[in-house]
């Protein structure tokens, strides 16, 4: 694995900052005996309040804050260094978290939810969440948070196109610049989408749909697109890493996160064999859907004070920077220096779009059914 310069510079800065904080915390704990009795101000606007470190648990439980995903491991470490509260390694998926929250609604075992945004909205409609606006809540885009502060996005993944540069070179193809370029027979013949019933596959379909002028109620554009590429042999694939490695497929529509992981963290490839592009539509319409991930405080949370502190921490610039290290774009990406490993910030600015999440959740089932039913691409089921 290479050490990209951006990461190195950032980690030096963070570790410096952490060391400073530690020194201060060390001094303080000498006076206060383990840091209890210290207060921190948390929250935004009406939700601003002081929390007392004496109320913090040994271990804070928050769904899906887990090592090995989105760099939460580093976030957990940084939080513990800063406040002395360790986090339980809550391995699991958003769906599992929602099942668990529902099963334990009356005696919650975790203090907050964290994971796919739409699952957070479902938890909200089951009255499982509580109102809390963390500090910096105001800088999160309106589409990516609920007005009442129940669910707030903290990071996002964006539909992009990952392709094998070496294969493209062999075939004499240029790097794709818009969705239209993927219709080229030599690209479409081994192009793969992920199935529409996955969060990621749904985002891919809606990205293409938007790029050709469709919306949540009109899926004709993406179906027409599928019809054009199906003729040349494009299809759906569940897992792309294997076929990508073996050369079975040379272009895949996936989250930027997945593509960048393939590019920089995969031993099978040299970095320059893979590239990731964020594409607009043929006439410059946005064609890269942002899929948010976020969190929500839970009703009757066992440790609301520590959970609020953690939620505030995740929205700080320092913590937002940490997501970059795992190729996940933090929700405050445009305020920060995006590392060079990502596609250019300008490409995101030009092509990215969000949809109203609550509308999406209510229409999701119908959208997926219609896509599965109408698409000519093989492997939708």
């Amino acid at each position, binding site marked *: 694995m290479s050490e990209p310069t951006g990461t190195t510079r950032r980690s030096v800065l963070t570790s410096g900052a952490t060391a400073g904080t530690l020194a201060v915390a060390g001094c303080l704990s000498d006076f206060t005996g383990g840091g209890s009795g210290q207060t921190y101000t948390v929250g935004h606007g009406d939700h601003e309040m002081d929390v007392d470190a004496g109320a913090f648990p040994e271990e804070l439980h928050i769904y899906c804050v887990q090592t090995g995903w989105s760099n939460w491991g580093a976030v957990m470490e940084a939080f513990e260094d800063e406040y002395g509260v360790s986090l339980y390694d809550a391995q699991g998926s958003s*769906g599992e978290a929602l099942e668990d929250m*529902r099963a334990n609604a*009356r005696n919650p075992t975790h203090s907050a939810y964290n994971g796919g945004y739409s699952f957070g909205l479902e938890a909200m409609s089951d009255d499982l969440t509580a109102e809390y606006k963390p500090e910096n809540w105001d800088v999160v885009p309106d589409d990516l948070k609920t007005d009442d502060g129940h669910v707030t996005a903290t990071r996002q993944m964006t539909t992009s196109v990952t392709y094998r540069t070496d294969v493209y070179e062999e075939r004499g193809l240029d790097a794709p610049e818009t969705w239209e370029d993927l219709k080229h027979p030599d690209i479409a013949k081994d192009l793969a989408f992920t199935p529409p019933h996955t969060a990621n596959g749904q985002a891919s379909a809606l990205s293409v749909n938007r790029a050709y002028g469709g919306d949540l109620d009109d899926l004709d554009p993406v179906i027409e697109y599928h019809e054009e590429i199906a003729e040349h042999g494009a299809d759906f694939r569940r897992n792309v890493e294997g076929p990508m490695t073996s050369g079975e497929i040379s272009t895949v529509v996936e989250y930027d996160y997945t593509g960048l992981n393939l590019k920089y963290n995969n031993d099978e490839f040299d970095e320059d064999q893979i590239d990731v592009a964020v594409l607009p539509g043929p006439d410059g319409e946005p064609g890269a859907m942002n899929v948010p991930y976020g969190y929500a405080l839970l009703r009757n949370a066992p440790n609301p004070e520590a959970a609020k502190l953690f939620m505030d921490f995740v929205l700080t610039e320092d913590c937002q920077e940490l997501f970059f290290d795992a190729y996940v774009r933090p929700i405050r990406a445009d305020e920060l220096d995006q590392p060079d490993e990502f596609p250019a910030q300008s490409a995101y600015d030009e092509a990215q779009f969000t949809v109203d999440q609550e509308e999406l959740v209510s229409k999701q089932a119908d959208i997926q059914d219609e896509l599965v039913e109408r698409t000519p691409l093989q492997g939708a089921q």
Partner: protein
Amino acid sequence: MSVRKSATSSARRVATLAAATARPTTERDRERRRIAIMCLPFFALATVAGFVPLATLVRLSLAEDAVWIEGWSLEAWRTLATTAEYRWVAWNTLWFVGLATLVSVALGVAVSHVLEKYDLPLERAVVAAVSFPIALPGIIVAYLIIVLLGRQGLVTNAIAVATGQSALDLASATAITGLFLGYVYSLLPRATMVLRGTYAEVNVRAEEAARALGASRWETFYHVTLPEIRPGIVAAILTFRSGLAIFGTVLVLQSHRVITLQIHDETSVGSYDPDVAAAIGLVYVAFIVAFTFVGLRFVESDAVEI
């Protein structure tokens, strides 16, 4: 007034009975106390693991808000009664498990017959091999089926090589046939174990007399052995209940929608209806209890006609 009187008197009778059982004076009382003491552990367990969860299920099926278990509503029961899909799932379950049970019992009769009537080499090993799947979780059974009949399966590829067809077309692990084999595999040892006990009690002399009088082997089996093992066959048919409860196998193979899979779907994220799941569970429990009572009456009566 009279109602209250009778209620008071019956309460008094129960109290007297309880007191007499606790401090027995007659032999009858002592016997009653022995019975009570021996049944106590079962009732303690049944309360914790049976009655309380069932009561919770009843409450959940009638809850307006199934997440918080608040309010009252008959919506879940109405959904269950008016949705055609549930009747289809019930029918799916009954014919599929019924057929698997019948096939298992028929095979069980054959296996028990062979074990009882012939001197086999390594008989103990055969018995162990036949009874072994009882200990296997359904998920393991599903993986065995995939290993044998899946796209890369042993049997699939052997047939593919032999006949020149493509393994993809032949693979039946995730088709209904693969699932059926998994069910039979799980039910066969249960049926066989019941039938072996019955076979041990068959009157050998009657069979010998029939053979001596010139009946063929098949006639002897049909007219002499079969009537004798009938109670065993009825008892083996009760393995139908185990078949209804199979979950791991169908969860992995997913090729046929049976009741356990339906309950799982009702409680999973996409279509979350725990109140409907609870209602299905209660219908299921009621059916099992009824089926057991009917089945036991058949097993106990001597004049069983199947």
